[in-house]
């Protein structure tokens, strides 16, 4: 072949580049293959990848603080959590604002639970202050009412702040006698530009009243916070009154002239709970104000954020590292035991005549036909202090009645039951690899002068390593995430990290921490897999 033809792209009969016509021909096949796997792909996407993604997200997600307390977070931006004094008045005022809204939306208790994971006491603090915060400014509302009784009417506020077009729509809706579907509240442009703070807080009030409480702002007295804001705003800029007409202008001017005292949020919070006078709760809010946080992960490795940086948790709260180590250690032990017990069985399975091998296989698979719970409970019956094994040992006189062995509610119980339950997962990969090792290798080794042991160890065993690798990784990964058996058999000292994860998901409802623990578990498995790949080689793993 000359250089010319070798370098030119090969053409098919109809003059198209061969590559393209091949691709075209393959496209249909690819499409069909895709259609065939599509259901599984969708299933896996929704049931596996999405939950894992969600877990990863939850383990760092922390938007609840910035969403519930947006003004506070902003006000605390410049404050140093390590300082030993609480932040300035602005932060108290911002927290007052945020809390009034949060209480109306009933989100402050959830925020309390979240912050309680990081510092105990935050939940009760937020709940108690939540009860008091709505009363801040009661005196201002009263003062307004004294100044002009019109301020005690909801309609006055609506008339002052609402878009006239909305007022007309609302009136028409009200007249129509409809019970639902009140037009959504709109602020007037005048109010928004002349009294922006008041308009904003009133807008929140109106929206929450309509949406969350299903009431009409025309019939609800606004929060005291609206009164506070109005008084402060008009006192600061009396000229704003001129933007309005008639009675409104007069009433607003009257407030400006009355020179009402500003509301002291610092005092109000201090009166509610004196802890607000310390920097501690503020520091917690400030440290966990970012929308994403490493807090759950720190917690999951027994660390915590303090104003002085990351530090270990108090000793009595350190549980997770210990649990991780115990999970690893017990899983390794269980894997080793499964290998020790499973290898000879797998060898028999692979080498017996098929009739006996089938029977043995049924025995190996038998555990799969009974529920996990039943098997674990059976172990409980066997192993407990008054259980079958202890009874037999006492009966044959091997142990005394007082010396009954403790084989349950400790690590031994977990190890025994899990080894039994996971044994088939070791035997089956081993078996399928051993099945592919022809008997002639052992014969060849013996004919070359090797005795039974060295024929096994030098020739058979190395060829069964892929099965050992496959079985071990399967058992280890299953063991590391086991939950029911340690729960039932392990007592306090035989539980795994997954039991703790389940606790946080089901009982403490700290999903972020559960997600962080789960993510760490996932990472540990991936790292182990990588190490394993380095030393054993994943390509050596054979399931058959």
């Amino acid at each position, binding site marked *: 072949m000359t250089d010319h033809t070798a370098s030119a792209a090969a053409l098919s009969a109809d003059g198209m580049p061969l590559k393209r016509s091949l691709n075209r021909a393959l496209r249909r096949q690819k499409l069909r293959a895709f259609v065939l796997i599509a259901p599984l792909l969708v299933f896996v996407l929704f049931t596996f990848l999405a939950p894992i993604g969600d877990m990863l997200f939850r383990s760092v997600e922390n938007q609840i603080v910035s969403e519930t307390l947006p003004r506070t977070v902003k006000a605390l931006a410049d404050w140093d959590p390590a300082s030993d004094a609480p932040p300035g008045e602005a932060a108290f005022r911002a927290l007052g604002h945020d809390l009034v809204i949060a209480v109306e939306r009933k989100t402050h208790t959830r925020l309390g639970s979240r912050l309680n994971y990081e510092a105990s006491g935050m939940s009760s603090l937020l709940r108690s202050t939540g009860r008091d915060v709505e009363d801040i400014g009661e005196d201002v509302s009263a003062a307004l009412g004294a100044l002009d009784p019109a301020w005690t009417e909801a309609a006055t506020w609506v008339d002052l702040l609402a878009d006239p077009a909305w007022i007309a729509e609302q009136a028409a809706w009200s007249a129509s006698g409809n019970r639902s579907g009140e037009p959504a509240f709109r602020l007037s442009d005048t109010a928004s530009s002349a009294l922006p703070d008041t308009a904003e807080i009133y807008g929140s009030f109106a929206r929450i009243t309509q949406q969350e409480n299903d009431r009409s702002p025309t019939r609800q007295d606004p929060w005291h916070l609206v009164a506070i804001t109005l008084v402060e705003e008009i006192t600061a800029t009396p000229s704003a009154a001129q933007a309005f007409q008639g009675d409104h202008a007069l009433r607003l001017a009257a407030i400006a002239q009355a020179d009402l005292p500003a509301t002291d949020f610092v005092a109000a919070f201090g009166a509610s709970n004196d802890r607000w006078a310390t920097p501690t709760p503020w520091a917690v809010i400030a440290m966990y104000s970012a929308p994403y946080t490493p807090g759950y992960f720190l917690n999951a490795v027994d660390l915590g954020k303090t104003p002085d940086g990351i530090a270990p948790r108090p000793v009595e709260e350190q549980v997770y590292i210990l649990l991780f180590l115990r999970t690893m250690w017990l899983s390794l032990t269980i894997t080793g035991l499964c290998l020790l017990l499973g290898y000879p069985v797998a060898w028999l399975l692979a080498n017996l005549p098929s009739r006996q091998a089938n029977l043995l296989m049924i025995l190996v698979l038998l555990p799969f036909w009974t529920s996990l719970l039943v098997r674990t409970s059976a172990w409980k019956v066997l192993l407990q202090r008054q259980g079958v094994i202890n009874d037999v040992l006492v009966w044959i006189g091997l142990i005394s009645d007082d010396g009954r062995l403790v084989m349950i509610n400790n690590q031994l119980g977990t190890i025994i039951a899990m080894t039994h339950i996971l044994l088939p997962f070791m035997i089956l990969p081993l078996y399928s690899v051993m099945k592919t090792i*022809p008997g*002639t*290798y052992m*014969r*060849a*080794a*013996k*004919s*070359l*002068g*090797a*005795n*039974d042991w*060295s*024929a096994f160890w*030098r*020739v058979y065993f*190395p*060829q069964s390593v892929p099965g050992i690798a496959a079985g071990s990784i399967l058992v280890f990964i299953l063991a590391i995430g086991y939950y029911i058996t340690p729960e039932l058999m392990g007592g306090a000292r035989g539980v795994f990290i997954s039991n703790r994860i389940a606790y946080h998901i089901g009982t403490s409802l700290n999903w972020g921490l559960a997600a962080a623990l789960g993510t760490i578990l996932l990472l540990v498995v991936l790292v182990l897999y990588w190490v394993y790949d380095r030393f054993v080689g994943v390509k050596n793993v054979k399931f058959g």
Partner: protein
Amino acid sequence: MAETGPLKLAGTDDFVVFDGVQKSYDGITLVVKDLNLSVPKGEFLTMLGPSGSGKTTCLMMLAGFETATSGEIRLKGRNINTVPPHKRGIGMVFQNYALFPHMSVAENLAFPLEVRKIGKSEREAKVQRALDMVQMGEFGGRRPAQLSGGQQQRIALARALVFEPELVLMDEPLGALDKQLREQMQFEITRIAHDLGITVVYVTHDQTEALTMSDRVAVFNDGRIQQLASPSDLYEHPANSFVAQFIGENNRLMGTVTRIDGGTCIVRLDSGDEIDAKPINVSKVGDRTQISIRPERVETNKDRFRQGAHTLQAEVLEFIYMGDIFRTRLRVAGHDDFVIKTRNAPDQIRHQPGTRIEVGWLPEDCRALDAPQGT
């Protein structure tokens, strides 16, 4: 038939002895029935027979992987029935080579030396020598999977020889190779066997292999040795109809013995024609017999017929030109699968289909054998 009796004394003639050996796997049928065989030192003995005739079983009993149900196997005069395989010191080549896939070629070869605790330097020298012997000196570092079938075969051979066994067993070692490679390896194996002076028991179902390689061939059928003889004896003097049929190409004519005296007999074929034949295992007048004539011993040139020899009329059915020979199919005495082979020579007649000719042969080339069951 079985040649060696159990009474022979142990000596160089009796390097390997099977003495009344029987084998049954299931306790119902005998796979090997009363095997008596002795192999002298240095002999290349081949067990030849159709699949399932018990050849592998015999080899496995000799190697120690199967135990004889009854009888005795002796190696150098010593009963080895209870000696475990790894203490027998017998080299073995398996059909699928059985090279250890997780070891390199050199490690494979070093294995038998290592288990014998031979020192490293001596080990390496022996491995290299064995590799050179099979012309694979360069390949020590490779894995078996990186070798072709023929190369793996050589390595398997080298491994079976590297620890210098006196006896080497080979079970259809060339079965997986293509024809050309097989022929080359046949030559190499015999060359090496003779060079080293080892005794070889070789199993094959390929008769050409058996004939070209062996000093003696034991033809197996149905768990028995049908004939034990040198390749030429086997071909030219088959002892019974099974051997005649199994070895080489063979024309069969069925008939009945009408007269028998000494070295010759007269057989009346089922077509009514009478011919001379050499009685092999017919004993009396009236015996049914199968006449066996090799295709290349049939003569069609009247000038070469011996005086007084019986001849038969034949009709040419087919003429096949095969290059070095002509192969002509005839209808003779009612059989239309009668084949003759003639050398491609300038004076040789090319018989056209439809012509009638006369065929004849020497009486000693025409053997009267036992009639197979049911004929």
